[in-house]
């Protein structure tokens, strides 16, 4: 039995924990929080797209549902943040269930278009139910989570640690799923759903389960975002943002847990850095997507899988003809 969480994850975690101290300015720390939030969301997308091959083009909407649920629970009903956070997960998952039940029968690009449609509808509802969400004006004045003893969540670094904690939990869940019977069923479905169902896998049940977990996690990320940004509006949860999440996952490597995290962090910083070139920013972004899908379809994780074994061989001084262990 292989260990699910190996040493490199502990190193990554340690690195993530010291990061805010390496960059003691507010702006970089803000970006770090946003990068970690993106990592949680992209990991949630990976749970459905990476593991079952179903592409969700409405994922930002579930993120939005989490954000609004949690913010409204706290502001209108006075629910404590932690409870609202759980509420955001529950409602995210529930919406995922309601959306997933009718459309998870669909394959490939039909599912993608259906989720895109749902994403747009959810966004329109958020925009138009002015009485509840204040619509396009957005929802200002969301309180930060109450301090627990010395942990003051209005402090960026403390909040960063909170997000890293959630990310770590999500990563562990993802890795656990990958190594379980459930995960292997999902991979079988991804490879060929007809063959998988012939093997006795209940394709639909597993897809729905994966989608509900995925949208629940997206809801959690949304809640964390709302109580960090302290202001939310429907514009942040549009189809463009859903596409952005897909791009992050693609660059990191679809289907890879470390890839999802890497892609999210990398692109958060890259798009921030591209701001210097202002109007060319999105043009370059588009070219980047084209370049990655055509030349490195496996993303960063694909590259790593290709180069790491070679590097290892070189380090161990093995002969050139050695057969690399295929996958892990």
């Amino acid at each position, binding site marked *: 039995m292989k260990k699910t969480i190996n040493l490199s994850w502990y190193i990554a975690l340690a690195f993530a924990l010291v990061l805010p101290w390496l960059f003691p300015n507010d702006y970089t720390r803000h970006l770090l929080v946003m990068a970690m939030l993106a990592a949680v969301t992209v990991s949630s997308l990976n749970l459905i797209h990476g593991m079952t*091959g179903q*592409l969700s083009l409405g994922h930002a909407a579930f993120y939005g549902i989490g954000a609004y649920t949690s913010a409204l629970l706290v502001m209108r009903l006075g629910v404590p943040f932690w409870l609202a956070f759980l509420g955001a997960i529950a409602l995210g998952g529930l919406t995922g269930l309601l959306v997933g039940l*009718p*459309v998870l029968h*669909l*394959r*490939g*690009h*039909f599912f*993608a*278009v*259906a989720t*895109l*449609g*749902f994403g*747009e*509808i959810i966004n*329109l*509802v958020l925009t*138009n139910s002015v009485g509840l969400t204040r619509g396009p004006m957005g929802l200002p004045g969301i309180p930060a989570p109450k301090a627990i003893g010395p942990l003051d969540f209005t402090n960026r670094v403390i909040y960063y640690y909170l997000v890293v904690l959630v990310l770590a939990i999500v990563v562990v869940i993802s890795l656990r799923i990958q190594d379980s019977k459930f995960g292997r069923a999902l991979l079988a479905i991804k490879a060929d759903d*007809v063959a998988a169902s012939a093997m006795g896998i209940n394709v639909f049940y597993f897809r729905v389960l994966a989608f509900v977990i995925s949208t629940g996690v997206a809801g959690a990320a949304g809640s964390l975002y709302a109580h960090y940004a302290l202001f939310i509006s429907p514009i942040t949860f549009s*189809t463009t943002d859903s*596409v952005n999440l*897909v*791009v992050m996952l*693609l660059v990191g490597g679809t289907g890879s847990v470390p890839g999802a995290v890497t892609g999210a962090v990398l692109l958060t910083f890259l798009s921030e850095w591209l701001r210097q070139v202002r*109007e*060319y*920013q*999105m*043009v370059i*972004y*588009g*070219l*980047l*997507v*084209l370049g990655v*899908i*055509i030349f490195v*379809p496996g993303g960063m994780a694909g590259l790593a899988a290709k180069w790491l074994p070679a590097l290892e061989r070189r380090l161990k001084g093995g002969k050139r003809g050695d057969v690399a262990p295929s996958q892990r």
Partner: protein
Amino acid sequence: MVGSSFTLNALGMTLILGMLDLINFAHGEFFSLGAFIALTLAVVLKLPYLLSVALAIVVVGFIGMASERLAFRPLRSAPRLSLLISSLGLSIFLQNLAQLIWGPDPRDFSSPFLKLSVEFFGFSVNGQRVLIFGLALGLIGLLYVLIQRTDVGIAMRACAYDLQTASLLGVRTDLVVMLTFMVGAALAAAAGALLGPVFTVYPTMGLAAKMKAFVVVVMGGIGNISGAIWSGFILGMVETLAAGFISSQYKDAIAFIVLILVLVFKPTGLFVRSSVEKV
């Protein structure tokens, strides 16, 4: 009236979808480029409106061809979702390139036909809308002849049926796919250049257009030309009626609700008897 332009736009998309099994997210950008190029030619170079529309159609046709060559041909053997993501990239690229060239602000595009009004069974109808309707019908007819009556059309249908077999039978598939993209992009450009004067022209105008096109394509059945034609008109009517009777705020949502209903209950489209997808 609106339905006829939905149809034009969706026809291009369904052609490409039938051929490559690709939902082309860049299709809306062909639409908006068509509008922008026609606008530039008509307003800046002071060419007559109809000539500008024609030139825009040709130019965007070539852009469509080029984008097939650069963004989709390298992925011919990749999974279908890679093609879809590639089209997303192309869409982001083209949309922001348009924004770079023409700026983000909406522009007015005046057409001489806007001022005309035509009496029609006691209703007065705007000349531009009559023009849209007439030209759309003309182009649809032309496309029908191209596909059903010419050698190129036969090759296109063969490729849509099975790319590999067609290639084995001596069809130059690369050329045919490129031509299909040219025709598809040209149709979208025609829709954009014709609709531009009715609304305003701005870089993200393609977004709504391509969403509508998806709906029409799915309603009509993938790659089904006549299905797309009928669905275009039906969606145009449903939307107008729903906006009037239900709520205009949720007008855009109606198209998506239709989309999802069709996907759930009749994923093969409204006009086909159900079939099982081959493994």
